[in-house]
């Protein structure tokens, strides 16, 4: 027995060291969360416009086309709770902040918070790279290796960054996501729309209090700090917005309008804007490069001019 345990320890030792090394490499791997936090911490005083939100703004708003010095701190599946957390975190670091752009999507109020959903694993990125203090995940869930596909991708990115001089990891220097280059709209668009709407409508009639509270808190923070808050809804294809559950969408927009009145914010709704066509979209509800440029310019004109 002693021989077995001794040999097992000797066998597992290099493996454990190797895995610990890979865990460290994955942690150090370039990613948007680390980059954005470090950027704001270092260059916060130059930021006048902060773009929050989920993938709709991560891919859909390019700060390069906004007049005021802008930075995009949106991330995939980022919900209102984390938008609020980031705003609070960055307010101190951005003394010259004048505008906040917060996208409102169809699912903003009706989707379960991140720590209750399928993408709970993203919380550990906020904890590791953005100073968030999480209490919902156990010690194993916080390991990089716990989410294997992401772990594998992070290891790959690290080695590309270190040894292949790759600098592009899906976002540019102002935080905009560069991955959706061309339109991928095809004949399957109806099916895609049905699947997407189904995913974005977990339970009709259920709205999460946490989301509404976060929405109000963001607006309150902006008002108290003399920051102009702009709610915006990014454009979508008609196959998407025609299928929205009207109760869900009406409740969301009316809630946002109430917040606007209460906190002197503004709301620009481009969900069914007919200036956008299928060429402008990567998929049913995300813009591609062409559409992002168009939308960012329109937004710039509407907000700043």
């Amino acid at each position, binding site marked *: 027995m002693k021989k077995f345990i001794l040999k*097992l320890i000797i066998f597992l030792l*290099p493996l454990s060291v190797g895995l610990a090394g*890979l865990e460290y490499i994955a942690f150090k791997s370039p990613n948007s969360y680390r980059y954005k936090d470090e950027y704001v911490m270092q260059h916060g005083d130059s930021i006048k416009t902060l773009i929050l939100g989920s993938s709709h703004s991560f891919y859909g708003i390019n700060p390069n086309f906004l007049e005021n010095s802008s930075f995009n701190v949106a991330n995939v599946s980022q919900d209102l709770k984390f938008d609020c957390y980031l705003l609070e975190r960055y307010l101190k670091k951005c003394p010259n902040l004048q505008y906040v752009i917060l996208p409102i999507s169809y699912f903003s109020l009706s989707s379960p918070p991140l720590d209750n959903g399928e993408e709970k694993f993203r919380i550990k990125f906020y904890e590791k790279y953005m100073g968030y203090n999480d209490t919902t995940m156990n010690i194993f869930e916080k390991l990089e290796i716990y989410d*294997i596909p992401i772990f594998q991708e992070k290891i790959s990115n690290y080695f590309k960054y270190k040894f292949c001089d790759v600098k592009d990891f899906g976002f540019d220097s102002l935080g905009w996501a560069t991955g959706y280059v061309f339109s991928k709209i095809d004949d399957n668009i109806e099916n895609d729309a049905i699947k997407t709407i189904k995913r974005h409508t977990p339970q009709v009639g259920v709205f999460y209090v946490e989301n509404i509270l976060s929405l109000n808190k963001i607006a309150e923070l902006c008002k108290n700090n003399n920051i102009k808050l702009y709610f915006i809804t990014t454009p979508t294809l008609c196959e998407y917005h025609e299928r929205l559950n009207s109760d869900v969408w009406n409740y969301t927009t009316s809630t946002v309008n109430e917040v606007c009145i209460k906190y002197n914010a503004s709301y620009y709704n481009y969900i069914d804007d007919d200036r956008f066509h299928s060429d402008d979209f990567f998929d049913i509800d995300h813009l591609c490069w062409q559409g992002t440029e168009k939308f960012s310019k329109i937004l710039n004109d509407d907000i700043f001019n």
Partner: protein
Amino acid sequence: MLFNSIEFLVFLPIVFILYWFVFKQLKIQNLFLVIASYIFYGWWSKEFLILIAITTLLSYVSGILIDKFKNNKTQQQFVNATNIILNLAILGYCKYCNFFGGSFVQLLNFIGFKADWVTINIILPVGISFYTFQALSYSIDVYRGKIKPTRDIVAFFAYISFFPQLVAGPIERATNLLPQMLKRRQFDYYSAVDGCRQILWGFFKKMVIADNCAVAVDTIWNNYQSESGFTLFMGGVFFAFQIYGDFSGYSDIAIGCAKLFGISLKQNFNFPYFSRDIAEFWRRWHISLTTWFKDYVYIPMGGNRCSMQRVLFNTIVIFLISGIWHGANWTFIIWGLYNATLFIPLLILRKNRKNIDVVAKNKFLPTLRETSQILITFVFVVFGWIIFRAPSIQMGINYIERVFSNSFFSFEMPYGKSVAIGIIFMLIVEWFNRDRSYGLQFNNYGILKYSALRWIIYYSIIIATILFMNINQRFIYFQF
């Protein structure tokens, strides 16, 4: 609790250390095994622990009563039959209630009676088929006098709930496993090392082969109407390796874990895809289930010691039951009958026991004839798996029709190219150890006598598993 989870990687060493270092006395050790096994099972669902406890108690009490009534055959039969009926009733309710109810409603609607059915929406307890059959084998063997009933209830609970094989087999026999629970286990270094090696191989088959094949299979099935015939055929091939990697991988992990605890479980897969005919395939695939059906259904029905018509009938019944055992879908039944159709000609020609020995015994490579036999058998098996995998009979028919379309000759394979490399690697390893009980069981011969080289192989497999595993797939056989 899944084998391929961090929780299990923590659970196993803790149980191992406590088992050998703390709970050394037999009864305490067995009690600890029961607690650990119930924690293992309850990690998935605490509610269904009551079901496994009920099944265990029913069989335990039956064993005692059967022995008590040893001078009264009628009462013995009554107890045995009651135990069988009750256990199968629980199994039947959990597995087949919605199926039969729904099918009955369809039949009524078909003949003009409007009917409705409220789906009870029963959740299928994980592993229920496996532990139920294991419990039944005990009481039947006691009834037959093959084994003396035990009064050690803790050992009996340990026998039924032993966590490595609890949820997906191998289905153990009381004659093999129960005596091991009743006597003190000795730690054996070489068995433990062998166990670790088998666990490693099981994880490789499950996490690299099966889980990556699953991605290709799901993609192909989701778009089967627009894929070429060759792609669809390859979808069948990938599913063949998915189910093999999944199920035999689980069995290897189970058997390997058992070795760590000084317990020997029966081999469940014997390299079935090297079979030269369908009869040999069924002697090598899910051995614990096929032998269970043989010993407890086929032989009591007369087996092959009766007229040819009766033998054929018995054979069809066994394959039918085997299909039904897999689940509540007509496709499983058709799959069973399909295999019966392939098996029967061999039976009639008395060639079902022609290929008993390992293929190409003592040879490096098979002959051309053996190779063609293996490939032909494999193709037939693949079409069976297509039926097995199909969500409905109609889809299965459509899928197979499309395989035989002109588009077969496009030889397109847009999916699964990388996992194909893993499959080839696995087949090569298993080919060279086809006379052993699992693929990685090399006996330190030749250059493998150097431990450094063996460790390099182990590390390579571990790294390959970490780099290429696809963690989002569940074990297929959990649903049975």
